[in-house]
């Protein structure tokens, strides 16, 4: 029962954070929402009893991919222009 509740909460959080990536006009906030999506996916892997996949996902997805996005934002503008 409590496991089912954890699944529902994590999956709802996944959908919400994925929608937030499209909602934010601030690219830094969008990158951080994408990192939060990866963190929730790693939590879901842990609940599904794959702890080593969870560690990989937390390291590569939530850590390094977010760092690459933040470095890429340094090369462009921080705010997305409206209507483009």
């Amino acid at each position, binding site marked *: 029962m409590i496991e089912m509740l954890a699944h529902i909460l994590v999956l709802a959080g996944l959908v919400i954070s994925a929608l937030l990536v499209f909602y934010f006009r601030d690219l830094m906030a969008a990158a951080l929402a994408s990192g939060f999506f990866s963190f929730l996916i790693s939590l879901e892997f842990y609940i599904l009893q794959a*702890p080593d996949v969870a560690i990989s996902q937390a390291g590569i997805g939530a850590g390094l991919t977010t*760092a690459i996005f933040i470095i890429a934002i340094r090369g462009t503008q921080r705010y997305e222009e409206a209507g483009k």
Partner: protein
Amino acid sequence: MMRMSKIVRTCADLMYPFVVIFGWYVIMHGHLTPGGGFQGGAVVATGAALVIVAYSYQEITSMLKKAVLMVQESTGLLLFIGAGLGGMVLGFPFFFNWLANSGSLFGMSVPYGPNPGELNTAGFLPLMNIAVGIEVWGGLTLVILYLLSGLEKGEA
């Protein structure tokens, strides 16, 4: 000369040792607990990426040298293949576990029955985890450092 605010830099300084120590914990216990060389190396590289993101390129190049990271990556790969070839030198097949139950480094025999796990076991598997950890740490840090250096050269 672009860098993050003082809050981000202080948090990165505070987080860095804990992230690196957790990554080395995952590497060293690779033969007992979930994780291993790749996962632990990725966690250590995340700690390095934290510092790279927080500071400017000029400050990063005084902390991390690309040549050192390249040597580190190659050292990890050489250590990995050297551990595999060590069995052939002693007359065993390639990748034979020539250190297991030998009584020397990582050579204790595995205790019988349910037990919490003994770190000093498993032969050359910990050596391979350390080699892969060093290699992944150097490689992934190098990827991020090259991305940042390409950006800086484009701006100048």
